[in-house]
């Protein structure tokens, strides 16, 4: 090999390629010709054929079993799949909103305000692994746009409430989800609904940390005095606008923003009838017992009858 003639040296690379089956046809033919005449290269060629044969054996060696590894992988994939939360930021009349969903359902709706996405609660938790984008979010984005455009009154989304803090928290969210569009309940009312009438403050606290506002309509839950109190931190303005979108009138008073009870139908939940605000003493009954409606249609959608005394069906409130 050390005394390889120049002709052989020029063919060295093609010789290997031909021996291991990687040469082009003309190159392979050149090598065939040369090897027939040159003894040194013939030996070299044979040696590489042997290399190729050994490599072929390695190629064909039985693979180690991968069944156990596969089973482990599938388990971890299922785990990962359940942990992934996909998010997108959507523009809304209330500013940018971060929308996030796992494969089980929507798990976060967050008003970003001027904060960056990285400042979102999504990056302050460790239960879920955030990933940006994903086609799975598109139907939610569409629904939300329709909601803000007034073309949709329900967001019947599957929810994943893993980011809720406790079973109590989840119970409060479930009870709040039952307050229909255009209706208003109170913290005391929700506390009663979940069978913990004394836990009014805890209910308020739980709704303050609602991971899915709008979808779980905590904006429909107000203080027992009729004031809008707390929303998404201190953003009462958002609550006002959401209620406005649902036809609930509010007014600014000294005590803050109040729901205008005189402009709403009322339902005492011990009853099956809804009333005009002027019926009997209904306007003075504690708001914890009463649900308010912006329109009679919303009350009737719950299966309530018009009150036989005040006849809201005959004397509807002005829209």
């Amino acid at each position, binding site marked *: 090999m050390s005394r390889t003639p120049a002709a052989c040296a020029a063919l060295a690379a093609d010789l290997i390629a031909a021996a291991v089956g990687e040469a082009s046809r003309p190159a392979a033919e050149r090598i065939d010709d040369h090897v027939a005449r040159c003894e040194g290269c013939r030996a070299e060629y044979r040696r590489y054929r042997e290399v190729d044969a050994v490599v072929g054996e390695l190629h064909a060696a039985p693979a180690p079993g991968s069944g156990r*590894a596969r089973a482990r992988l599938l388990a971890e994939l299922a785990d990962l799949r359940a942990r992934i939360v*996909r998010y997108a930021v959507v523009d809304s009349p209330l500013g940018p909103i971060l929308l996030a969903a796992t494969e089980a359902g929507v798990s976060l709706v967050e008003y970003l305000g001027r904060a960056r996405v990285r400042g979102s609660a999504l990056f302050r938790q460790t239960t879920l692994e955030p*990933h940006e984008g994903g086609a799975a979010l598109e139907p939610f984005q569409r629904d939300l746009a329709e909601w803000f455009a007034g073309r949709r009154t329900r967001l019947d989304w599957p929810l994943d409430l893993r980011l809720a803090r406790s079973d109590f928290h989840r119970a409060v969210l479930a009870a709040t989800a039952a307050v229909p569009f255009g209706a208003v309940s109170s913290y005391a009312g929700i506390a009663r609904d979940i069978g913990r009438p004394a836990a009014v403050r805890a209910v308020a606290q739980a709704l303050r940390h609602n991971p899915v506002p709008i979808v779980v309509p905590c904006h429909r839950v107000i203080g027992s005095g009729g004031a809008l109190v707390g929303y998404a931190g201190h953003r009462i303005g958002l609550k006002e606008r959401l209620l406005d979108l649902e036809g609930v009138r509010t007014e600014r008073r000294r005590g803050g923003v109040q729901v205008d009870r005189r402009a709403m139908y009322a339902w005492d939940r011990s009853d099956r009838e809804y009333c005009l605000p002027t019926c009997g003493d209904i306007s003075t009954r504690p708001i914890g017992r009463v649900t308010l409606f912006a329109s009679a249609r919303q009350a009737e959608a719950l299966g309530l009858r018009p009150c036989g005394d005040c006849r809201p069906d005959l004397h509807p409130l002005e829209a």
Partner: protein
Amino acid sequence: MPQAPAGENEGDFEAVVARYHGEIHRYLCRLARHAGDGEDLSQETFLHAYRAWPGLPGDANHRAWLYAIATNLYRNHVRSAQRRRLAHATVRVTRHAVDVDGPEGAAVAAQMRARTEATVDRLPLKQRIAFTLRKLHDLDYEVIGASLACSPESARAHVFQALRKIRQALDRPVPTRRAPAR
């Protein structure tokens, strides 16, 4: 835009796992000879792939894509292992003693196989990866180049360099129990 139809269907990814897990697992077990490392790396490869799945273009070559992920993970694995070794400052020279892993007087073929494997183990990283991808997993040079961030031509050069070294190793006398001097 990271919203290709590829990611829409979870079932599609399961099909990718079913189809390619075996060979990717084998590839990484070949590269990372220490038992366990290969399995962990193949695990990582598919978890990584799953995360990237929604952003993958619909017409992507899944097999080439998985090999590229696997190769990258393995190279990082080697780099961090090297860092760990340096950090511990115990320079161990004996890397792989040639171990003819068969009974005494095994067939010549078995010896040649073992010697080839030992030679492959000692190849520089890129040569070793290129050789494994080309000769043991039948990938074309375009894909190998993409996996190694080099041109198809240099991928081919790596493979041929590896073949020359194997050919030289097969020429040496049958090894004794000592590690051969390169």
